[in-house]
Structure formats: structure tokens, C-alpha cells
């Protein structure tokens, strides 16, 4: 069986966030599974995410887990809730420490992680006019 995460990682390498959406129940999910976790459906279509999200939680990391991360501390590891519903881990970038608020609106970017991987990160969304 194909690795259900592979399409997500392939898209990351192109700076794209695509989500598996069930063609039976219409629900998007993460982390990717071979079957829709909501209805069990196996017909999954990969669609481009809007990139809109809100901050579900965060932690400012002060101690690097490995030498790769030592130059980056402190950095912000976050959980974000995508507009399509699913949740994912990410980095929160370009936000002053006193401006971080759970529930704040975020926008998708891509960045290289210290290990070299291209990964989604999120920055504060522009205030709508």
C-alpha cells in the first residue's frame, strides 16, 4: 500500500499545501490516512488548501533538541487549525512574543527547516480592509 503521507510531502517539496478530501463525505483530514477518518471512505482527492488558518496553540522553544536547531532558539512551534478543518503542526513566524494569541488568524508560507526540509509555516494574516 502506498504511504498515505507521500502526496503531502511531495507537495511540500514544491511549496504547496494540499489536503486529502474524501469524495464520499467531502471532509478534509490530517494527518493523511489511507481511509477517511470520518466516514471510512477510500476515495480521497488531493486539493490545494486555502492557506488560511488560526492559531490553536503554541510554545516558544528555548532549548534546542539537536545542534541543528541551536542557532534558531528561541523559535515558536505551533498547532494551527486550517480553514478547511484539519489541524497540523507548524512554525509560527514573524510575530512578536507579546502578539501571539490563540485564535489569531494566520496565513501560509513555506520555509526551509534546519534539517533542510521545506515545510509549511504560518505568519499573522493581513488585516482585511
Amino acid at each position, binding site marked *: 500500500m502506498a504511504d498515505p503521507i507521500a502526496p503531502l510531502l511531495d507537495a511540500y517539496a514544491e511549496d504547496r499545501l494540499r489536503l486529502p478530501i474524501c469524495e464520499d463525505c467531502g471532509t478534509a483530514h490530517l494527518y493523511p490516512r489511507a481511509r477517511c477518518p470520518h466516514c471510512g471512505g477510500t476515495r480521497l482527492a488531493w486539493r490545494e488548501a486555502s492557506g488560511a488558518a488560526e492559531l490553536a496553540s503554541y510554545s516558544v*522553544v528555548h532549548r534546542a533538541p539537536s545542534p541543528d536547531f541551536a542557532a534558531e532558539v528561541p523559535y515558536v512551534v505551533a498547532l494551527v487549525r486550517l480553514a478547511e478543518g484539519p489541524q*497540523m*503542526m507548524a512554525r509560527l513566524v514573524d510575530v512578536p512574543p507579546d502578539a501571539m494569541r490563540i485564535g489569531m488568524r494566520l496565513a501560509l508560507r513555506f520555509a526551509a*527547516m534546519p534539517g533542510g526540509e521545506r515545510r509549511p509555516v504560518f505568519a499573522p494574516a493581513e488585516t482585511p480592509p
Partner: protein
Amino acid sequence: MTAAALRHAAIVGIGESRLGRVPGLTALELQREAAEAALADAGLAWKDVDGLLTTPVRTESWAMPCGMVAQGFGLDPRYIATLDVAGASGCSMVMHAAMAVATGQASTVLCVGGQPLLSHRGRDATVKALAGAGWAHPDLEAPYGPLVPTLYALVAQRHMAEYGTTAEQMAEVAVAMRGWAAMNTNAQKREPIKVADVLASPMVTSPLHVLDCALVSDGAAAFIVTSADRARDLRQRPVQPLGAGSGFSHAYIGDHTGITTTGAVRSGREAFRQAGITPADIDVAELYDCFTITVLVELEDLGFCAKGEAGAFVQGGRIGPGGSLPVTTHGGLLSAGHPGLAGGMFHVVEAVRQLRGQAGLRQVPDAELALVHGNGGIIGLHCSLVLGSV
């Protein structure tokens, strides 16, 4: 498993190795200290053991931990397994040993685990090694650089935002654990601390300070489960499992929406249902305390208080010495010690001690019913036990 079947079994022996910094010993040597203490406590000999449960260790290259321990101890078990429910393993061992006894697979099961986690590599190197050990999803989480404490910090930050929980309230948990540890001569950290000390300790991963996090320790624990019939003829007052339950919500924290509610809801509900009691009946609660936030979430999910109210619940020393709900009375992972998967076994050992009335200075008066809870992984794996003295 029905409650009636669980009650065919009893815990009849408990033991701890030296805990804290115990240099120069292998995992097997630490486990032998604990196992010999448990056998002596029960009045049993090695030849009486016909079942073995153990947990994986990080400090040895053991492909088959139960085989290594059985061979190391010279056992001849007819029931043998390595059990791994992460931090919930201690509670789960009691459940599985009771099932083995109830079904006749063994008459006397030695449950033992532990390792020299601190001496092996030191605290900081161990924390770093754990960050790459698979607790974070290797592709979807680890590249962002979370420590294991970061994964719990996400729960804490969300709990603070949703319910107004404060850093001071979380610190109360650490203070309570240290208060209990001061009365435990085997505890790794015994000097008293105050809320201000927790808040002044270095920030590891906000909102968790060093003193919000478990220790890294050398140590091992053991307990012996046999039939209730046999237990009557042994040295100690038997302690019986009256209810047991497991719960699972997720493997990776990022995969779990609603992170402030956990599988402890299910495990606790089942354990209480089987025992025919409610949280209000519990005299002492030995709750898994890998981080201060873990205890708050468990208090809520197990039903000791409503969701969102644990911060206020623990204020004023309510779960510490002299408090109305004594919690984790040996000092827990935060102050007594945390040697990895065996860490939660010490909570079982302490519950038995309390129910026998052998807890010395930290004895909870008239303790007859204990709740023991183990939490594993990133707050996704749970096992709850109700234990009672016979």
C-alpha cells in the same frame, strides 16, 4: 474483563531500587534490586515466580526485553511478555498480570522495569535523544524542532487560553509533588520549593519551566501479582484491583484536535464503573505527572473536577500534604524520579503502600481506595486502576 475476574488477583509484593542518581548499575542490576525487594516484601522466593512482565529500556541494546530479564534472573516463566503502553505501562501491567492470573496462565507474575536513564547519558542528552525518538511525527512534527516537553507545552498553552489556567496554578502541582517527596527518603529531589521557585526556574518551552518537567532518573520498580486465594497466606495485607480501564485518543499530538481532553476520560470511567465507585470515594490518587499540566488534565478527565477547573482545584495545597485530595504521594516523576517507562510503576507501588498503611510520614489516614493513573505518549495513551485493600 469483568470486575469479578479482576478480583481473582491481588498485589502482594512491592519493591523499589535506589532512585535518583545511582551510577555504575545496569538496567538488569537495578531491576534485580527492585525485584528482590518485592519478593522479600511478599515473602516469596524466585522459584515461586512463573510469570514475567517487563517494559522496554533505552539504556541497553535489548531486542527482547522480557527474554533478557527472564534470562538475567534465571526465571522459568510459563507466562512472559514485554508490555509497552509508554507511560501507562505501570498501570497496564497490573491489568495484564491480573488477566494472566485470572485465566490461569500464571499463578505469580513478577512485574518489573527500570534502567539507569540518568547515568547512561545525563539529563540534557537524554532529553535531546527523546526529541528524536519518535514521540513527534518524524515528517510532520520533528522537522519543526519540538522537544517532548514542547508537545505537552502545546496542551498547557491551550488549557491556559481556554480556561484561564495560570502558570502559578501549574506550579502548585510541582510544589505539591516536592512536598510529598520531602517525606520520601528514596526521592531524587527533596528540598522544598515554592510557586515562585517554579516560575523562576529556566523556561524550557513555554509555558513549561524546568520545574514543570519530570526528572530524568536511574531506578527500577517491581510488584508481584498473584491469586487472591494465595494472597491470603502471604506476608502482607493484599491489595486488589477493583476496576481497570484503558483509553486511547491519538499517537501524535498534532493529530488530535481538542487537545485539552484525553483518553483518560474513557479509562477512568471504565475503572470507576467496574469498581462501582465514583471519584468522590477515592482516598488517594496516584496520578502520572510527567509535566505539571498532565496532572491538571487528568484531574479533570478522571472526574475529580470539571473540565477547565483543575487550575483552581489545585490551589492552596489541595493535592499536597495535608490537602483534601492527596495526589501522587511519593513525589512522582516531578520529584521522586522518572526512569522512563518504569516511572509509572512507582505510582502503583505507592498506592499499595498507602492502602497497606505503610507510607510512613506521608501516610494518608484510613486510605482504603486508591486511583492510579498512567499516561503515555503525548497524553494519548491511558490506563486507570482502582485499587482497594482487602
